[in-house]
C-alpha cells in the first residue's frame, strides 16, 4: 500500500478557539430562533450534532448534548466509554451516564435552566424513540419542544477553519483509500475482498469509520450497494463512493476504474462525467444555490442528449455536503435553493446511469470560497485503469 503524505497535525489552540466560537454561533442561532436551549439527540446512526457540541467520538446507542442559552453545556450518555470520550474531548465538563430510556436527569437539568416553560430546540427530534420522547415530554411540563434539526444542519453547513483542517486530514486518508482501492483491483478478486483491503488501509491510517458503496460490471450496472461475492473480470468498470471519517469529519471521493483497457463507451462516459463535474465546480462560489450547481452539471448531460438520466429514476442527487455526517445538506438538486456560503464543504458528483457504460461515479469535494472553490483531494480526476 502507498503511504500517504502526513496529515497536518491537530492544532490544540485552534481547537480551543474554535469551540468557543462554535458555541457562540449556536447561541446566536438559538437567539434568532427564540430558543432557550438546544438538546441534540444522537441515536446510534446520527451522532453528528452531539459530536458538534461535545467533540466526542461516541459508540453507544443514545446520547444527548445540551446547550442552554446561558450557562454551561452538558452531555448525557448511555455508557461509561462514552463518558470517557466526552471527558477526553474536554469540551463539556458536565457529563453524566444514563440508563436509557430513563432521561429524568436530562429533564431535571433542562428544568433548572428553563423552568417549567420555555422553548427547547431538539436536534433529531424526528428520530427520538417514543420511550425517550414520552418521558422527556412528561417531565418538561409546559416547555415547548420544537425541532432544531434544520437549525443545526444549517450551522454545520459552514465549517470553521479548524473544521476545514479536520476535513483536509480526512481528505488525505480518502486519497490513500482510493489508491488502496485501485491496488486491490485484479481479475478474480471478489468485490468484498476489494472493500476489505480498503477498509483495512483506512483503519490503519486512523480512520474511525467509512461510508462506502460499490458496484462492478458492465453497462448493466444501475446503482451501487454493499459489495457482493461477484469476482472481477477484465473489462469491468469498478465504481466506488468512498468516505472515510477521521477526527469526526468525513471526506468523500467518487471514482471509477476499469480492469484493462477501457472500452469506447467507458471512455465516452468518463468524458461526459468529467465535463459535468467541471461544469459543476465552475459554478461553485459563495452566494450561488445548490440548484445552480446541480443545473450546471445536468446541463452538460442535456447538451449531449443524456438529460433523462439526471432524473430520480436513475440518480439521487448531483452531490451534497459532508462534514460530521457523510451526507449533509445541501443536496445538489436543481430545485434546491439553499445558498452555498463561504466555507461550506460539498462534493460535486453527477453520479448516474447512462447507456454509455452503465452507472458511473466521479466527484470531488471542495470548500466553497468567495471566488470559487478549493479542492480537498489530490487524487487525479481520470478514468483509472488496473492491469489484467
Amino acid at each position, binding site marked *: 500500500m502507498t503511504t500517504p503524505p502526513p496529515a497536518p497535525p491537530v492544532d490544540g489552540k485552534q481547537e480551543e478557539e474554535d469551540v468557543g466560537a462554535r458555541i457562540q454561533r449556536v447561541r446566536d442561532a438559538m437567539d434568532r430562533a427564540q430558543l432557550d436551549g438546544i438538546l441534540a439527540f444522537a*441515536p*446510534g*446512526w446520527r451522532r453528528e450534532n452531539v459530536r458538534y457540541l461535545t467533540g466526542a467520538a461516541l*459508540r*453507544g*446507542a*443514545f446520547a444527548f448534548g445540551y446547550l442552554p442559552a446561558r450557562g454551561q453545556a452538558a452531555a448525557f450518555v*448511555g*455508557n*461509561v*466509554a462514552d463518558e*470517557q470520550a466526552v*471527558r*477526553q474531548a474536554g469540551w463539556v465538563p458536565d457529563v453524566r451516564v444514563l*440508563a*436509557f*430510556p430513563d432521561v429524568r436527569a436530562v429533564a431535571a437539568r433542562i428544568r433548572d435552566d428553563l423552568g417549567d416553560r420555555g422553548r427547547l430546540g431538539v436536534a433529531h*427530534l*424526528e*428520530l*427520538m*424513540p*417514543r*420511550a425517550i*420522547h*414520552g418521558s422527556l415530554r412528561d417531565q418538561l411540563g409546559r416547555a415547548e419542544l420544537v425541532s432544531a434539526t434544520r437549525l443545526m444542519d444549517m450551522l454545520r453547513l459552514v465549517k470553521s477553519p479548524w473544521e476545514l483542517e479536520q476535513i483536509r486530514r480526512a481528505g488525505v486518508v480518502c486519497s490513500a483509500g482510493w489508491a488502496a482501492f485501485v491496488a486491490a483491483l485484479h481479475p478474480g478478486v*471478489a*468485490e*468484498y*475482498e476489494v*472493500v*476489505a*483491503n480498503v*477498509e*483495512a*488501509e*483506512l*483503519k*490503519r*491510517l*486512523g480512520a474511525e*469509520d*467509512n*461510508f*462506502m458503496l*460499490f458496484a462492478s460490471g458492465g453497462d448493466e450496472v*444501475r*446503482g*451501487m*450497494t*454493499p*459489495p*457482493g*461475492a461477484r469476482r472481477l473480470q477484465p473489462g469491468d468498470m469498478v465504481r466506488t463512493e468512498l468516505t472515510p471519517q477521521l477526527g469526526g469529519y468525513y471526506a468523500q471521493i467518487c471514482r471509477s476504474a476499469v480492469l484493462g483497457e477501457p472500452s469506447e463507451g467507458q471512455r465516452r462516459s468518463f468524458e461526459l462525467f468529467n465535463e459535468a463535474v467541471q461544469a459543476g465546480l465552475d459554478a461553485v462560489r459563495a452566494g450561488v444555490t445548490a440548484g445552480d450547481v446541480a443545473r450546471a452539471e445536468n446541463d452538460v448531460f442535456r447538451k449531449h442528449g443524456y438529460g433523462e438520466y439526471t432524473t430520480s429514476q*436513475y440518480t*439521487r442527487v448531483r452531490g451534497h455536503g459532508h462534514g460530521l455526517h457523510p451526507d449533509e445538506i445541501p443536496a445538489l438538486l436543481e430545485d434546491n435553493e439553499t445558498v452555498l456560503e463561504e466555507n461550506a464543504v460539498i462534493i460535486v458528483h453527477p453520479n448516474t*446511469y447512462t447507456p454509455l457504460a452503465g452507472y458511473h461515479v466521479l466527484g470531488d469535494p471542495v470548500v466553497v470560497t468567495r471566488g470559487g472553490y478549493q479542492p480537498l483531494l489530490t487524487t487525479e480526476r481520470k478514468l483509472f485503469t488496473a492491469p489484467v
Partner: protein
Amino acid sequence: MKRGLVVLDPAEIPPGELDRRVADLQGHLRRQPLAAALIYADVYHSGDITYLTNICVYWNEALLAVPASGGPALLSKISRRVHPWMRATSNLDDLRSGPNLADLVGQFVGELGPGAIGMVEMDWWPARVVQDIEAALPGRDLEDLGGVVRRRRRAPSAPETALLRTAARLTGQAVTTALDGPFTNPERAGRAELTARLGGAEDVSVYCHPSTAGADTIEVVSEYRGYWTSAARVVANGDVPWAAPMDEAYRAGVSALGRGVTAERVHDAVDGLLAPTGLGWRADLIDHTDLETDGGYRWAADAGEPLADASVFALRLELDLPDGSSAVLADTFEIDGGTARCLTRNGHDANPE
C-alpha cells in the same frame, strides 16, 4: 458500517428457513388476532428485519410489514434502483420505496382486511414515525407487540447456531490477528478489520485504545450474515498491576457461566476478585441479538434474564483504570448442554480458564 459481504447463501440459510420464521410470526399475529406487524429499523439497529428476510438495511431507515397472511413487504426510503439487489439477497418480492414511511404504510395496510396493527418494540420507534402512521391509519388500532421477534431470535435454530459459531470464530480470528507484534493501535485495527472483512463480515467495529500507558485493549464486534459476536483482549506492554486481578476475575466470570445463570451471579463471582483493586468495573452478559447496539436497546428487566440452553451471548468485563482509560475482556459463548462453551477462542484455549 455495513460495507462487507452481503449474500443469501442456501448452504447457510436453507431454502424455507426465512419463510418459516415469517410464518412463525404470522401464526402469532393470527392468534392475537392482528392484521399485520410492522418492524422498524435503521442502519444501526436492524437485526429483526435481517432475521426475517436477510435484508441488509445499509443506509437510512426501513420498515418491514408482515401481514397475518401473505408475503411481507419492505417499506423504505432506499432508492428503487437497488431493489434488484435487495431481491437477490433476501426472500422478499414486495419492495416499496418513497420519501415518507407513513405513506407507504398507509398504502400497504389499505390493501389488508380489517384489524389492528402490531408494532414490534413500539417504544423504540421514533415517536414522530408512530405519530405519522397513526395519522395515516385513521380508525386502525396500533398495538405494541414488544420484543416478539427478538424473543424468537434468542432461541436460535440449527442453521442460526451454525452461523453464530462461524461468526464467533471469525471475530476471534480478527482479534487474534491484532494482538501479536509491535503494532500501533490503528495498525491493530487495520489488521482486525482485514481479517474480519476477508472472512465475509458484513459489519465490523474495532476499538483499539490504550489501557493506561502499559497496555492496549483490542475489542472486535462484528456481524456475519446478520449474526453479531464479540471478543476483546488486553495486550500488556509493561508493568500493569491491574492485569492479573482482571484476568483472574474474568476467568471467575467465565467459570460461573451456565444454564440458568444471571448477570447478577456473574457479578458476584467477579466482585470478590476486583473489589480489592479499588477500581470501578462492570460485568455484562449481552445476548447476541443485542450486540449490534452494544446492549443499548435493552430494558432493565432484560438484565435479570437467566441464560437458557442454546443461547449465544457475550461476557464483557470492563475495568476503569486510574488514568481515566479502560480495559476490556470479552468473549462470545454458547450454552450447550447446560454449560458455557467459548466460541471466540481456538481449539485448546476454547475456554479461557
